[in-house]
């Protein structure tokens, strides 16, 4: 518990990471929401301030959870993880702390966007808020595994661009910034991505229904696959069987 407390403190103090995860989504939202009063997303009845609130919640929380990888890569490069491996801290607790920290920042990002959104007059039913948040938190699981995987594959120098690039690509293809439509190649590609389903999770707040069987399957497969690869990368990295 003490260990986790200082890990969180450390994360909050790391300005760069905290700004990217918390401030940037909010700033983008402020710009978009302030300039789009009462306008709707073209072709739909969804106000832009609602649409972008949930989209940025997706983008911000995704980056927050992937950020675990950035911290793991930094610790590997400086040799700190060697030091940690000589403490009684178990591998499970090490990753547990990283994932929890990622989720804590993700939770803060989502909450902050909700508050700012509400300040701009976004009104949703209590059930919508809760259901959307629940789906988001589950939808972030494969990203936590992806973050750990990247953290063990890439060095600290390269992890910024790699995680940033992966998140931008996943966000773009998954339909974070604009709807991917309901047909065409992009649509089929998108459906295989966890980011698409994270976006669908956020649409629950706009009154859409939750994931069908396909959504759960894609999230499950990505989680399982990334976790397996992450374990292999970890074993190779530490010379353990």
């Amino acid at each position, binding site marked *: 518990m003490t260990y986790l407390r200082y890990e969180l403190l*450390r994360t909050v*103090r790391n300005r760069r990471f905290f700004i990217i995860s918390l401030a940037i989504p909010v700033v983008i939202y402020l710009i978009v929401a302030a300039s789009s009063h009462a306008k709707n997303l073209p072709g739909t009845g969804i106000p832009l301030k609602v649409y972008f609130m949930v989209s940025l919640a997706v983008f911000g929380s995704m980056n927050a959870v992937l950020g675990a990888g950035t911290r793991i890569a930094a610790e590997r490069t400086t040799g*700190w993880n060697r*030091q940690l491996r000589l*403490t*009684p801290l178990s591998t499970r607790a090490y990753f547990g702390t990283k994932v929890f920290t990622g989720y804590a920042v993700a939770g803060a990002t989502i909450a902050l966007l909700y508050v700012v959104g509400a300040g701009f007059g976004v009104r949703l039913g209590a059930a919508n808020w809760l259901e959307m948040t629940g789906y988001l938190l589950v939808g972030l699981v494969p990203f936590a595994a992806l973050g750990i995987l990247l953290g063990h594959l890439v060095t600290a120098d390269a992890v910024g661009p790699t995680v940033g690039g992966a998140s931008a690509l996943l966000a773009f293809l998954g339909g974070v910034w604009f709807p991917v439509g309901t047909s065409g190649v992009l649509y089929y590609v998108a459906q295989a991505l966890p980011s698409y389903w994270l976006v669908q999770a956020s649409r629950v707040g706009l009154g859409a229904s939750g994931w069908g069987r396909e959504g759960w399957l894609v999230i499950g497969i990505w989680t399982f696959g990334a976790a397996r690869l992450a374990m292999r990368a970890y074993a190779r990295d530490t010379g353990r069987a």
Partner: protein
Amino acid sequence: MSVGVETGIALRGLRKTYRTSDGPIEAVRGIDLDIAAGQTLALLGPNGAGKSTTIDMLLGLSRPDAGTVTVFGGTPEEAVAAGSVGAMLQAGALMRDLTVRELLLQLASLYPHAEDVDKTLELVEITQIANQRTQKLSGGQSQRVRFAMALLTNADLLVLDEPTVGMDVESRHAFWTTMRRLASGGRTVLFATHYLEEADEFADRIVLMAHGEIVADGTPNEIKAKVGSRTIRATLPDVPASDLESLPGVTAVERRGAGVVLACSDSDAAVRALVAAFPEAHNIEIGGGSLEAAFLELTA
């Protein structure tokens, strides 16, 4: 042979080869070593002797290609998980964004019998930097913090990989004074060094490594006696060291200006041969062996 295996450390047939772009490097080539609990052992050797590789395997940080490691009757991982190991690794940065005290508090929370953080800060004399962020420390300060991290564990086994590298003479002295005080508590201490005087003064056993193998093992006095090493000093300008090295009984030659220092395995034979071959040699002195001479002879 098996003394202390239950309570101490046993390395059996350890081997490790690294693959590099210049081909494989055999870093450790078959090491057998028993360390009884409570012993202070220096792993002494030049750079590239395989000391750090051996330590990594002992700590479970890397897997041996062959051989086994037993620490307090179990695997290194089990000993680490039980909090029985405190280690000071070579180099490596500290985790950033925490103060020294916070970092130590975080680590202390992981150990079942951790030492009090403020007491440790005092012991290592870093109380005055306790509230500084770790990324703002000087090299010497970081070194002390890493020492504090090892002591904080209150572990039965302390492993220190070249702990005084980069310290000035004063810090080095302070470091060993602290260590000496702590070692009296029945702790097992293993440290790697390439400073002969550190091994000589502090360890009660020296294991000398060269080229991935153990070349000598004993108390500092035994090591000196084992090589029966004596040195011959003489003033003898203008003779190449290689000519002197080929004299019988001579194991190593060092030139110091007009003088030469011959490390000898048989100083009687060497002095006779020296005088016969180079009648111009004068100011000849024969002295008892220094650890340095033994070191030169055994690791060559």
